[in-house]
């Protein structure tokens, strides 16, 4: 038996203006799936969302006064989630729609930093909708477009009917270079089965183990500070103390560049899988469940960020082998 997680799952929808976020949101809200959602929209948000429970967000990004230089949170989300919990019986999950220009880091970090938010809700997935026609332009003129792809757990390359197969292939490559770990769907009008988008939780974390490390090698760099993904793995079990020390030091030094990290770790003499997640300098780790008997005890860690040195990360990871 495992303890039932009563925390409310939260899905974050990001994407540039016009990419199709609202289309996806309306599908989620109107399809007959029996789930009730509380929707948090940005106050400049679009009209035409039909839901019982809609809350306006103020996009208030607050720096934490705790000495952590990249530690920012969304003060409005902390307040809203606390308020929503007073009507906990009225919904099953929360969807947060961000503006096209929103930086996803403070949204994600809110779910790491605030203990009250963590106790009541869990970030299930960041879903980013990408406009296949305009991705190149967006990446060229905005920092946020790249970060939204980097932070994503699920990416919808939308409006594929409006580009040529060759253009689509370029978009695919760009997305994969930035984020080699997300689950990518190609859609016309965000027409993806909602089960592939919502409440993925641990299932998508397992996907880390399916990723071929070779695929995530250093691709053609556009410019030096472009975002890439690095995946490292070990078949030998790790030493828990060495791993914790290494990872903590790593994010303390390189946290500004590390947008996200996720891993599933097999520690020596530990029957449980350890899962770790991080945003910038913030880390969150927990024993998830016992390893299954037929499951290969492979440890794998995925980094998405800037200036990632694959060789150095792999070497550091190797020193953690027990």
């Amino acid at each position, binding site marked *: 038996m495992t303890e039932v997680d009563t925390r409310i799952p939260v899905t974050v929808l990001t994407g540039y203006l016009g990419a199709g976020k609202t289309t996806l949101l309306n599908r989620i809200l109107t399809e007959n799936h029996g789930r009730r959602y509380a929707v948090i929209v940005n106050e400049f948000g679009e009209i035409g969302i039909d839901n019982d429970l809609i809350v306006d967000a*103020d996009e*208030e990004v607050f720096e934490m*006064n705790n000495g952590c230089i990249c530690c920012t949170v969304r*003060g409005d989300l902390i307040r809203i989630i606390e*308020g929503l*919990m007073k009507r906990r019986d009225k919904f099953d999950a929360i969807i947060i729609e961000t503006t096209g220009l929103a930086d996803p880091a403070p949204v994600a970090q809110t779910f790491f930093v*605030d203990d*009250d938010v963590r106790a009541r809700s869990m970030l299930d997935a960041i879903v980013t909708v990408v406009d296949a026609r305009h991705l190149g332009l967006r990446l060229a003129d905005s920092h946020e477009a790249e970060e939204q792809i980097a932070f994503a757990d699920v990416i919808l390359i939308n409006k594929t009917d409006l580009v040529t197969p060759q253009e689509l292939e370029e978009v695919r490559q760009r997305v994969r270079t930035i984020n080699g770990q997300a689950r990518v769907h190609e859609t016309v009008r965000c027409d993806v089965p909602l089960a592939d988008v919502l409440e993925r939780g641990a299932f998508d974390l397992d996907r880390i183990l399916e990723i071929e490390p070779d695929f995530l090698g250093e691709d053609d760099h556009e410019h030096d500070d472009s975002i890439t993904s690095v995946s490292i793995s070990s078949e030998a079990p790790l030493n828990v103390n060495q791993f914790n020390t290494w990872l903590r030091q790593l994010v303390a030094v390189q946290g500004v560049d590390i947008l996200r990290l996720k891993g599933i770790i097999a520690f020596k003499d530990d029957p449980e899988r350890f899962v770790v997640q991080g945003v910038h300098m913030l880390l969150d780790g927990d024993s998830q469940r016992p390893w299954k008997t037929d499951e290969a005890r492979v440890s794998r860690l995925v980094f998405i960020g800037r200036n990632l040195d694959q060789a150095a990360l792999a070497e550091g990871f190797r020193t953690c082998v027990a």
Partner: protein
Amino acid sequence: MSADTVEQVPLVYTHGKRLAPGAPVSAIVWLGDEAALALGDGSVRFAGVHGERVRIDAHHGVILSAARHPDGAALLSGGDDGRVLRVGGDGTVTELGAFGRDWVGGIAASARSKLIVAAAGAVATVWLPGAVKPSHSYAFPSTVGGIALDAKGLRLAVSHYGGAALLYPKSAQSSRFALKWAGSHLACTLSPDCGYLVTATQELGLHGWRLPIGADMAMSGYRAKTRSFSWDRRAKWLATSGDARVILWPFDGKTGPMGRKPNLTGARGALVTTVTFHPAQDILAVGYADGAVVLARIDDDNFIIVDEPSGAGVSALAWNDAGTMLAWGDEDGGAGLLDMKVRA
């Protein structure tokens, strides 16, 4: 101190009554001998020691904040429907203001100055004595974290991201005394004589300003956000929630808690979520994250159990003016009343 050999019977069984309002209790105010419970389902329940007398459906959503109306005959409520209501014990509901889709997260009122102040989004709105529509308002650069009035009801403190401000709420053109400190400031309290302003911070712990000059104080060591403040009747002690004990800061003397240690009381292994001083004695009612309620003293560890752990955190706690009755409510819709005058 003696060993605990006899299990004390919780006072709720001998002097009180449990209630089951069925929705999270956001706040409780007393109107005479009746407690008004403001709930997460938008309703207000009026209850006495014989149980719930009447339910009034007031807000179209959650009641986030409440205070006693200056006239003493009604509860003032702020909801996530953006409305401020006067909910009378006689069942009348009057809308005093509507703020669209902004949540009314804070409300304060003074029986002495007759002022009412409510916070919705980044704006604090004032109702002058007797007003049934907003009189004037003050805008801030970020959402208001908390509001507080001093004992005379003439000074208003507003906390927000990056600090707090002090105003004279009677005046629409009030000067503003800005107090800056990095980070996000949540709930706040003014000492009764307006000598200190204390805020709870997002990073845990308190920040304080000694007034009028605004000298900074930091009070740390909390395990959770402080959501509940209470001053004792002499304004010597400020009791605070947010740790495994009630943390009481001394505010007597010229510099208050600066360089001094707090008193600690009410340790029983659970996080303290709510505190409120008795109006006439050196006794504190304390609510915990496990649902227990106790009566504690300022300077020793003895306490009397009012109610046992229910599993749901105590979210509201209030004495009546005479200090003869206590009401509490929790996050899961449980509540209770204690009446020290009668034996149940």
